[in-house]
């Protein structure tokens, strides 16, 4: 139990840097680029330091400006939050635009996204979460449109309309919560919830929050923006949104579920949407004709699987969800990088393995892992999920069956693509497309996957401890309240 004022750094540094960056860029173009990278690095170091502290001394919290918890703006950091903050940092670093353009816009937006995302998982207050969510949302609208294509603008606008409506719904949910409980501090809510938030008002509030935040978490059915955006946005933005930002929103939903709404109807709602998401995503991906939309749809399915995991009460489900989320965060961006190199019809992959053997091998490796083939990490994540699901009620058995069936469909469409890679006559595009330089992040992620395979035992233990910590409601509540002192 400790209060740590540095908890603000992962949020504040990038946000401040985001505002300074255009000025720096105006001074000197090259300096602007370096400034952005440097800001991410500094944020990463600050986050890592904080994570180290949190890992050593336990969860930390801090209230801004010295106001006591119910009134003040509280930040709360445990291993789970720090893991995703670090992931976000690494992701932003890895997917930092490689082009040498002079526009500072995307960099600013990325830094904003970084700060907002960190704030999203670190906030201990419902309204703050909303604010940071909006910051992330606005940044991602901009990033989605930053490709500069007409389709990008159109998709981004549709995304914006949907997401803004979702935000309004979430705000409505917040209003409901406030009306019922009179506070928006997560700790207070956790303590008050059993009295005031059980029953229809609580369920309605959760539903509205779930729908609102579900837009970013690619929850069914508010994920209709996904195929459009992932098809039109630059690959690095896509990777970031699909790989990491969507997980942040899910983590927030998890926090709501665990701390404020731990009731059957809430779990059931998330479970239902998760199952529908898996079905929708896998089946639609099976019919997709190009890699990009295949991965967009399959991303929906994967997020559905994570939602199913989070909908299992208890630390086992949380651990499974975290493992799945981390795994997906590694695999999906790499997939999008490959898809970016082979845009268009999957049939154009024909013979690609002959000219780009490494890329094809990477594709197969990623596919095997995401389907869940032992001994790759994806299998162990799925193992955790099934373990948790089978020890819950029969509704989760159904979910497990859907996930397993989904894996078969997944194998069908991924290896259909792999079949084009390895079989068929060469279509002549492979040679020009083998650009390892462009695919560096994908290979880095593939290497991470392989390394993780040999570190399953410690990783598993760490994730489990993370989940236990995240499920311990009284401790979290006490720590958040402590933050005000």
């Amino acid at each position: 139990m400790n209060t740590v004022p540095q908890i603000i750094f992962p949020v504040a540094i990038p946000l401040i840097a985001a505002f300074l960056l255009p000025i720096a860029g105006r001074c000197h173009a090259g300096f602007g680029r370096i400034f952005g990278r440097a800001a991410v690095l500094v944020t990463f170091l600050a986050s890592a330091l904080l994570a180290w502290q949190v890992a050593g001394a336990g969860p930390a919290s801090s209230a801004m400006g010295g106001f006591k918890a119910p009134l003040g703006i509280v930040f709360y950091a445990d291993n789970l939050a720090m893991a995703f903050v670090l992931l976000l940092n690494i992701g932003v670093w890895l997917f930092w635009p490689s082009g040498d353009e002079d526009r500072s816009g995307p960099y600013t937006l990325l830094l904003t996204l970084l700060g907002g995302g960190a704030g999203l998982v670190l906030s201990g207050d419902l309204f703050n979460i909303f604010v940071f969510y909006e910051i992330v949302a606005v940044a991602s609208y901009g990033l989605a449109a930053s490709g500069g294509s007409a389709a990008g603008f159109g998709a981004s606008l549709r995304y914006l309309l949907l997401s803004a409506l979702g935000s309004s719904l979430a705000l409505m949910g917040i209003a409901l919560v406030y009306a019922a409980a009179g506070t928006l501090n997560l700790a207070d809510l956790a303590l008050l919830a059993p009295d005031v938030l059980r029953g229809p008002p609580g369920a309605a509030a959760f539903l509205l929050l779930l729908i609102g935040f579900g837009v970013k978490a690619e929850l069914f059915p508010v994920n209709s923006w996904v195929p459009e955006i992932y098809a039109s946005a630059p690959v690095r933005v896509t990777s970031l949104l699909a790989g990491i930002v969507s997980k942040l929103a899910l983590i927030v939903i998890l926090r709501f579920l665990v701390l404020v709404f731990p009731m059957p109807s809430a779990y059931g709602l998330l479970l239902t949407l998760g199952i529908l998401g898996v079905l929708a995503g896998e089946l639609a991906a099976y019919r997709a004709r190009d890699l990009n939309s295949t991965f967009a749809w399959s991303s929906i399915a994967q997020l559905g699987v994570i939602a199913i995991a989070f909908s299992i009460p208890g630390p086992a489900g949380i651990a499974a969800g975290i493992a799945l989320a981390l795994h997906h965060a590694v695999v999906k961006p790499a997939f999008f990088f490959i898809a970016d190199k082979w845009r268009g019809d999957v049939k154009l992959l024909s013979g690609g393995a002959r000219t780009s053997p490494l890329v094809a091998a990477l594709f197969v490796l990623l596919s095997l892992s995401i389907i869940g083939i032992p001994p790759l990490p994806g299998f162990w994540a799925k193992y955790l999920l099934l373990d948790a699901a089978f020890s819950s009620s029969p509704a989760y058995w159904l979910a497990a069956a859907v996930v397993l069936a989904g894996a078969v469909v997944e194998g069908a469409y991924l290896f259909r693509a792999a079949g084009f890679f390895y079989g068929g006559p060469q279509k002549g595009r492979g040679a020009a497309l083998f650009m390892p330089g462009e695919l560096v992040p994908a290979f880095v992620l593939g290497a991470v996957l392989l390394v993780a395979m040999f570190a399953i035992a410690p990783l598993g233990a760490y994730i489990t401890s993370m989940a236990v910590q995240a499920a311990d409601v009284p401790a979290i509540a006490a720590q958040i309240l402590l933050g005000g002192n």
Partner: protein
Amino acid sequence: MSLLLRRRFFWEEIDLMSLLDILLLVAALLASGLFVLGRGSFAGWLATVVYGLMLAVLAIAGLALDSGVAFIPSAMSFEILGRNLGWRLDGLGWFFALLTVGAAFFASWYGSGEWGRKQKRMGLQHALLALNVLAMLLLLSSGDLLSLFIGWELVSWAAFAIMTQGGGPAVAAAYRYMIYALAGAMAVFAAIMLVQNVTGGLGFADLQTAISAMSTAQVWVLFILFAAGFGVKMALMPFHLWQAPAYSETPGASSAFLNAVSARMGLFALILVLVKLTGLEALGSLAIPFTFMSAKSALMWVAAITMVVPTFIALMQTDARMLLTWHGIGQGGYMLLGVLVGTSLGTAGGLMHVFNYATYQAALFLAVTAVIHRAGTSDLDELGGLITRMPWTYVTLLMGIIGLAGLPPMNGFVSKWMIYKSLLDGGQPLLLIMAFAATLGTILSVYKLIHNIFLGQLRREHQHLKEAPVSMVLPMLILAGIGFVTGFMPGLALNITDIAQRAIGGDMLPHHLGGVTLATGSLNMLWVVGVLIGAIGAGALIFYLLGNRRYEVHQFDNYAGGHFLSADIRYHFSHEFYPGLARVIGPWYRGSIVRAEQGIGILVNVAGDLWQAVFRVAYTPLYMLLVVVLGLVFTGSWGIVP
């Protein structure tokens, strides 16, 4: 190895830990080594030698297991996510491991010579073969359900990798296999998680506890998941559609390996889980409501149908490899049926059939590959008369088909006899009749195979074909020879199956070198084969000593319908070889299962399109609001989740 030489009873003295570890280590080194130096021409020979050494290690392990050691443990074990993963080789695994390495030995030998040089990426094939062996050894030596599942997946994907090597249609066939295998694996995955849910562990003992602790409905679910999941791999009906095309399109030597042992991994897992761990009594007491059947008899009927239907589908094939692979599916039914009878005779018969099948199917496939190597095709309508050109290949094929058809004096007869006998003694006349019917179908079908390739008219373009090189002929002749020797002296093979049978548990089958002696009818192959050879000798005497001298005429020196038949007049009766039969049974199986498969595909397509359409057409804020409304309506009524 010096350790081995020092002692007299070395298997009692050496550290048994090392045997399995040596085996796995060697397999792993071989697989990785071949990936690195796969392009070198000596890779195949190196692999062959290494497989030979592994066979020697297995032989030592076999001696140890035979002397009463329960299993050979491995030093390799992991603890992951609170579960212990361990490996150990017991008699059952050893039996299948012996077949695996043996099949790999012959396949590798065959692939190292001229045939391999003509292949495009033989180095990769050698490496993948070694990978398959490694994966299978890991599966066969698994020590708990989790390592079993890991091994299972490795085997599936290693087989998938080697299946794709044929290119073109092979990739499509392998893709189909992959979907089936994946679905099966997921079923197995669900099953083991179900076990873990009940007992909290994944050891083999936990499965046994789980079954006694579960409700009948749960046991049924478990049984169906395991049977279907493992049944996919051994192509039990109705999950059999993938196997024939997938195995046929695999390049020759690898295909022989896959045919001989790959599908048997499914049998191994079924024996392990259903027979050894669950026990046939438990399966027998699992009654199907409103029928006289139990889970055991249902599975036996599935095995029997798997025996009959694929055999008659094989009969209709026009490609030699497809014909053989369809028979492979059918033969799997015999093995499972024998094992499921549960008597010592049935189990021994089923296991011996695994051994026998591996020998003759590998020999047959290698022989057909030799034909493809020389004549360039395995289309049964485009060959004929090769007996004069490729006599040794013919001999192999002949011995192979006699084994496949289950006629004396080859080993296939002995195991089939044991299975028939066990069915008869076990009071299963209908199943026995189905087994007989399948054998009759096999005889017809293998005659078509040998006739269309080797007998009848020689085609003009094949008039100058040469016999396959020694590197190809020798391995297949040796395999056929093993088939004959174990047919003549089945006791040799039964000694090997003994080790597996002891590991399964239950009564042992008393046997002698020539066969078995039972109260209700015996078989002594020493006599049968001896008399048969003697009688053929007598026939030879009658033939050679009596009557006038023969004139051997050219193959084309005969006539039909007033024409002298020569190579110019193409009149080889091969297309639609059994027209009458085809007219009768053709309509029976006009692909109801194929249609079911297509139906599932169409269903997935339509469902996928529907989901896509849902997202494409609509203006999405509407969905959001709809969900909110629906959610608000339903949030009050969630009771099913704790």
